[in-house]
C-alpha cells in the first residue's frame, strides 16, 4: 500500500493538497528591506490617485488618471491621447526590458520584493501573526479543533483580510475617475455599476489570492517563474545554500563531539520555518524560491548565535558557487551586477526612456488628420469649377481653447469654406475655433477650376494663431472628372 507521500508508485496520487505554510517571524537586513519596499509600493498604490495636479480649468486635476470615458491618460504633466498610445507601449517595453535587466542581474528580485502577489501575501502573513501568533501558534490553531477561540480568531482574521482586500479593490477604481468625487459617489450609491463590479471582483481576487492561494499562485499559476528560468544565466544572483560549507549537517553538540566531521549547517530548520513559500532552500535552486532572502536573515542570525561566519545561505551566482566550492573566492557583487549583459539591457532601457522623453518634449499639441470624402469623389459645380469634400479632424491637445488657421497649398485657384460658410464667402484661408482638449471635426469644401489633372496632390495645413505657432499638415488628393466633363 502506497503512503500518501509516495509519489512514485503506480497508485501515486493524482492530486496533492496544499501543505500549510506558516512562516516564522524573522528580522534582519533583508526583512527590513522588504518592509521598506512594502511601504513604498503600498503607498504608491493606495496614495497615487489622491495626488492633485493643477492643469487649468479644462482638464482634471488628478495627477494620475486613466480617463477611459474620454480616452485620455494623465500622468503628472504628461497627457496621452489614444493616437499616442505608443507611449504606453513604450512604457510596457521599458517594463519588460526592466524585468530582463533585474532578472539577469539579481534573479527573481521582482518576485521576492516588488510583485503585488508577494507584497500582499506578506501583508496577509503579518495579519496571520497579529491575530494567531507566530508560526507555532498558527500551526497549533490550524491543526486544533474548532473551538470558540478558533472561531473568533478566524472570523477576526478573515474580517481583516476582507477589509484589506476591499481597500485594495477600492483603490484600483480611483485611477479611473476623480478620486474624491468617486469616493463620495461610491458610498452614496451613485457610482457606475462597473465601479461596484470592479471593486467586488478585485476584493474577491485579493481576498483569495492573498489570503489563501499565496505561494500556489507563484508555483502553479504565474508564468513568470518559467520565463525567468530562461532569462537567468550562471552569472545571475540566486539565493544559494552553500552546501560545500554546510554539509554534512549536524547540531552544535554533535560538532563539538566530533570536530571536523560536520559542516556549518546546524540543521536548525530556521530557513524552512521562515520561508513564505514553504520550501527547503537546502535542496538547491528551485522554482518555488522567490528569492525573498528571508532564509538568509534567519540563517545569519543562527550563525551569529553559534559563532560561525554569516552567509551559509547567501546571494551567490552559479559561477561563484563553483569557484567557492573549489576553494576560491567569488567575484564581488559589483562585478556581478555590472557585466556586459546587464549593461546592454540597461543601455536599451535608458535609450527607450530617453527617446520617449525627447519625443514627448517635441510633440506638437495640434494635430491634423484629413480624410477625402469618397462618395462623391468630386462634384461638378455649375460654373465649371470642381469641388472636393474633406473631413478634417483637428485635435487640440492643449487644455485651453485655441484659434487655428487652415490653409491649402499646391492647388491653384482653390477656395475653401466650411459647412458654416458658403461658396460666396469662400477664402484662401479659414480660421477655426477649437475647444480645449478635444477633437473638432470640420467638413471642408475645396473648389478649384475644372481644368487640371484628374488627380492632383496638394497640402492642407493647420497652424496655431495663438501662442505655439507650430501645426500639422497632410498631403491629400484633389479629384476631377476623368473625361473633363
Amino acid at each position: 500500500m502506497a503512503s500518501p507521500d509516495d509519489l512514485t508508485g503506480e497508485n501515486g496520487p493524482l492530486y496533492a493538497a496544499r501543505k500549510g505554510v506558516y512562516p516564522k517571524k524573522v528580522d534582519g537586513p533583508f526583512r527590513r528591506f522588504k518592509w521598506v519596499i512594502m511601504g513604498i509600493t503600498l503607498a504608491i498604490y493606495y496614495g497615487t490617485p489622491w495626488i492633485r495636479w493643477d492643469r487649468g480649468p479644462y482638464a482634471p486635476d488628478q495627477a494620475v488618471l486613466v480617463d477611459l470615458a474620454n480616452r485620455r491618460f494623465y500622468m503628472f504633466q504628461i497627457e496621452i491621447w489614444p493616437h499616442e498610445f505608443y507611449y504606453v507601449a513604450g512604457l510596457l517595453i521599458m517594463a519588460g526590458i526592466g524585468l530582463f535587466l533585474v532578472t539577469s542581474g539579481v534573479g527573481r528580485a521582482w518576485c521576492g520584493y516588488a510583485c503585488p502577489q508577494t507584497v500582499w501575501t506578506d501583508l496577509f502573513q503579518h495579519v496571520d501573526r497579529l491575530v494567531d501568533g507566530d508560526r507555532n501558534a498558527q500551526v497549533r490553531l490550524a491543526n486544533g479543533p474548532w473551538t470558540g477561540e478558533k472561531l473568533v480568531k478566524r472570523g477576526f482574521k478573515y474580517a481583516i483580510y476582507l477589509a484589506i482586500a476591499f481597500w485594495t479593490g477600492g483603490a484600483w477604481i480611483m485611477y479611473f475617475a476623480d478620486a474624491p468625487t468617486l469616493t463620495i459617489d461610491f458610498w452614496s450609491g451613485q457610482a457606475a455599476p462597473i465601479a461596484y463590479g470592479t471593486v467586488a471582483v478585485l476584493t474577491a481576487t485579493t481576498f483569495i489570492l492573498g489570503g489563501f492561494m499565496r505561494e500556489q499562485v507563484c508555483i502553479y499559476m504565474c508564468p513568470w517563474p518559467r520565463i525567468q528560468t530562461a532569462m537567468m544565466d550562471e552569472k545571475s544572483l540566486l539565493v544559494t545554500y552553500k552546501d560545500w560549507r554546510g554539509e554534512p549537517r549536524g547540531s552544535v553538540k554533535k560538532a563539538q563531539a566530533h570536530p571536523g566531521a560536520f559542516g556549518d549547517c546546524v540543521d536548525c530548520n530556521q530557513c524552512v520555518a521562515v520561508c513564505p513559500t514553504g520550501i527547503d532552500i537546502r535542496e538547491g535552486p528551485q522554482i518555488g524560491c522567490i528569492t525573498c532572502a528571508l532564509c538568509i536573515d534567519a540563517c545569519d542570525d543562527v550563525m551569529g548565535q553559534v559563532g560561525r561566519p554569516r552567509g551559509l545561505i547567501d546571494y551567490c551566482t552559479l559561477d561563484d558557487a563553483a569557484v567557492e566550492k573549489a576553494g576560491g573566492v567569488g567575484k564581488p557583487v559589483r562585478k556581478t551586477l555590472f557585466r556586459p549583459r546587464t549593461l546592454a539591457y540597461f543601455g536599451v532601457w535608458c535609450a527607450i526612456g530617453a527617446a520617449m522623453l525627447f519625443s514627448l518634449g517635441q510633440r506638437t499639441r495640434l494635430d491634423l488628420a484629413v480624410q477625402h470624402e469618397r462618395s462623391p469623389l468630386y462634384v461638378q459645380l455649375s460654373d465649371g469649377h470642381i469641388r472636393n469634400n474633406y473631413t478634417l479632424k483637428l485635435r487640440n491637445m492643449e487644455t485651453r481653447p485655441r484659434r487655428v488657421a487652415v490653409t491649402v497649398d499646391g492647388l491653384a485657384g482653390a477656395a475653401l469654406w466650411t459647412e458654416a460658410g458658403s461658396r460666396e464667402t469662400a477664402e484662401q484661408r479659414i480660421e477655426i475655433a477649437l475647444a480645449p482638449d478635444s477633437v473638432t471635426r470640420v467638413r471642408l469644401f475645396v473648389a478649384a477650376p475644372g481644368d487640371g489633372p484628374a488627380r492632383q496632390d496638394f497640402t492642407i495645413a493647420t497652424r496655431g494663431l495663438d501662442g505655439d505657432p507650430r501645426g500639422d499638415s497632410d498631403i491629400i488628393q484633389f479629384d476631377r472628372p476623368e473625361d473633363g466633363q
Partner: protein
Amino acid sequence: MADRKRIDEATGTSTVGHEWDGIEELDTPMPRWWLWTFYASIVWAAGYVVIYPAWPMLNSATQGVLGWSSRSDLEREMQAHAVRRAPITNAIAATALTDLPTKPELMQAAVQGGAAAFRVHCVQCHGAGGAGVKKLYPSLTDDDWLWGGDLTSIEYTIAHGIRNPDHQATRVSQMPAFGRDGILDAAQIADVVSHVRVISKQEKPSAAAARGEALFQANCAVCHGSTGAGDRTVGAPKLTDAVWLYGGDRDSLTATITQPRNGVMPRWGHRLDPVTVKMLATYVYSLGGGEKAPAPTLASVSEGQGADGQP
C-alpha cells in the same frame, strides 16, 4: 509505456514514462484546488444549461428558464436608445425647419439622423453621399437644383415627390417629346442643340445656333427662360451651366429633346414621419449645395415676378 517509469534522481519524483530523445516528464501531482476549480466549472455549466438557451433541438435550442435571447436584448437596447433620443427628436420636431441652422447642435443631430435615413431610403437612386448616378439620378451635392436647394424646397420635394400621378401636391412638370411627337424635325433639333451648346459655352456661335435660337424662343423659353436660365417653379433645369443631369454633349442633348426622361421620385411624406423628412432635408442641405435664400414659389411668381424666376 508505464514500464519506463522511473524515479528522477534530482527531484525524487516519478516520471510519467514517456521519453522523447532523452526528454522526460515528471509525474507531479496537480494541486487539489485545481480539481476544485474543475468541479466548480462543472457546477457552473450545469446551472448555465438550465438558465440559458443551451441544447440544440430540431427547430431551435432549449429556451432556458430565464427566457433570455439576444434578439430580446437587441429590442431592449433599441427601445432604450429611442428613449434616449426622444429629447432631441422632440426638439427637432418643435423647431421650424428654417430655424435649425441657427441651432448648431440640433442641426448636427438632424443631419446625422437624416444621414441614417438617407442610407435606408435614398441611396438606391441617389447613391451613397447623394453623389447621384450620371445620366440617371441627380447629384444632391452640387450647387444646381431643379426644384430649389433651400431647406423648405428640399423638404417639400422629399415629402411630395416628383411626378406622382396619384398625388395632387407633387412636383410636376413635363417636357414635351419634341422629336418623338414630331413637333420638331431632326434638323431643327440639331439647331436647338447647337444653340443650347452655345449658351452653355460648349460651342462657338454658328449659323445653326442662330437658327436654333429662334426655335428655342418659340418652343423652349416658356419653361427654360429666354436666356436658358431655367425655372425652379416648374423644375426646368438651367441650361447655361456646367451641370447636366442627362449629359451636355450633342448626342445626349439630342436624345433629351427627342424624348425627355421626366424622372420620378416617390413621395415620402406618407411613408416617413415628419421628423425624419425634416432630418432628411437638413442632410441633403448639408451635402454642399444647400442654398440659404428660399426659392420662389408658384404663388409668388404669379404675383408679378419674371417668368424665369431667377434673381
